[in-house]
């Protein structure tokens, strides 16, 4: 047991305070001073050019600030004093997603269900099949292929990590898959809001597109809030995240399918008995925070927090309004932390066949998702 694992959790929490403080100070400065300054400053002779033309807001600036801390100010590595605070960023993003359940009702999710399952399921299967097919052309190892297939198909990092032990993947395979999808995801995270605004997409169309086309949950969140920072029913973040959650739920099923594919090719080896059942994978890999989100939806539907403020209905209650305001801060903190974990040196690890396959599949999915959303825009279910 090393010193790191011997530290008690309370000790770790205490050691997270300096990093959290840096994240909080950063976001407060960006949101209360930098963003208002950008909205009124004159650049190229235009007032508010940074906001109106570059679509910069506190979410994008927060991620950029996090990236600058790690890669420029601290020279490529977060100092030990701040590291534990930044390690809480995923916890904050998951907390925000649970609270996001207050934007939906059970009826709205049921209404969305068939279309989301059809589209999300279609794109998950398409991505996995494409990676398996391309892996033959690029002669990739089976375990590398399996990890990349789920990384591109479902939910980026979580899926790659969940798949790795089931297909005997080496740490290098996971690292290559993560570097590839994070690199691609960061690019989509920054360009999607521009494309969305340029094409005049509505929040519904934009949310459906990025919820389907962007590979990583954190990046879907960032791209949605960068397009429209407002958190309310029908905004980009409410649409994008519900589609993303549908995809996250499919992690155990996709891990099972890819594991079956992997071991089918390894059946002559002794280790074939290691293949796990779908039941075992559901118990081990199901993302439990999604249950928290579903309970939140249920409580909201039962009116536990008052009126939700759905279009055409009564205005949102004070509790719901406060909840939404807090969510924007919680997401903001989480995304500054996420930026702090984007390491340019790690991204440079991506290369060779996994990078080519990951990029081909990622770009195909991203473009095809936009085309499909534009094609069915009149049929998208508003929630």
């Amino acid at each position, binding site marked *: 047991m*090393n010193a*790191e*694992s011997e530290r008690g*959790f309370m000790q*770790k*929490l205490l050691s*997270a305070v300096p990093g959290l403080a840096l994240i909080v100070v950063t976001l407060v400065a960006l949101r209360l001073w930098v963003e208002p300054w950008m909205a009124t400053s004159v650049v190229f002779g235009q007032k508010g050019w940074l906001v109106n033309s570059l679509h910069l807001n506190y979410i994008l600036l927060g991620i950029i600030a996090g990236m600058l801390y790690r890669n420029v100010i601290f020279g490529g590595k977060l100092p030990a004093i701040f590291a*534990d605070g*930044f*390690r*809480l*960023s*995923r*916890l*904050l993003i*998951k*907390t925000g*997603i*649970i*609270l996001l359940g207050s934007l939906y009702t059970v009826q709205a999710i049921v209404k969305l269900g068939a279309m989301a399952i059809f589209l999300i399921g279609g794109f998950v299967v398409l991505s996995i099949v494409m990676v398996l097919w391309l892996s033959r052309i690029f002669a990739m190892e089976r375990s590398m292929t399996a990890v990349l297939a789920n990384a591109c198909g479902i939910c980026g*990092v*979580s899926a790659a*990590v*969940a798949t790795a032990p089931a297909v005997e993947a*080496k*740490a*290098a395979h*996971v*690292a*290559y*898959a*993560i*570097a590839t999808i*994070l690199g691609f995801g960061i690019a989509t995270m920054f360009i999607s809001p521009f494309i969305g605004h340029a094409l005049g997409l509505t929040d519904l169309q934009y949310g459906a597109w990025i919820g389907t086309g962007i590979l990583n949950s954190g990046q879907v969140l960032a791209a949605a809030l960068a397009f429209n920072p407002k958190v309310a029913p029908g905004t980009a973040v409410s649409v994008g995240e519900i589609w993303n959650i549908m995809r996250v739920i499919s992690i155990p099923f996709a891990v099972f399918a890819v594991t079956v594919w992997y071991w089918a090719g390894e059946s002559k080896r002794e280790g074939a008995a290691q293949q796990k059942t779908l039941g075992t994978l559901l118990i081990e890999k199901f*993302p*439990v*925070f999604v*249950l*928290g989100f579903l309970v*939140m939806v249920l409580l909201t539907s039962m009116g536990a*927090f008052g009126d939700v403020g759905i279009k055409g209905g009564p205005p949102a209650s*004070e*509790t719901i309004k*406060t*909840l939404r305001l*807090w969510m924007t801060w*919680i997401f903001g903190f989480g995304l500054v932390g996420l930026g702090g*974990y*984007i*390491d340019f*040196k*790690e991204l440079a*690890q991506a*290369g*060779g066949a996994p990078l080519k396959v990951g990029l081909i599949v990622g770009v195909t999915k991203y473009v095809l998702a936009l085309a499909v959303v534009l094609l069915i825009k009149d049929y998208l279910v508003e929630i």
Partner: protein
Amino acid sequence: MAESNVKIGSETVASAEKGKMTLFRDDRQEDWGAILVAIVVIAIIVAMKM
């Protein structure tokens, strides 16, 4: 792709304690942690609005 030169990715990779993007032992624990924090946040907001 020489494995020895590869550093583990930036998010939760179980085998690299120092490279993990979480304070928790694994993703499942982090999920429970997020549920707990969400409950605390809701409790504070509901108490404030009572």
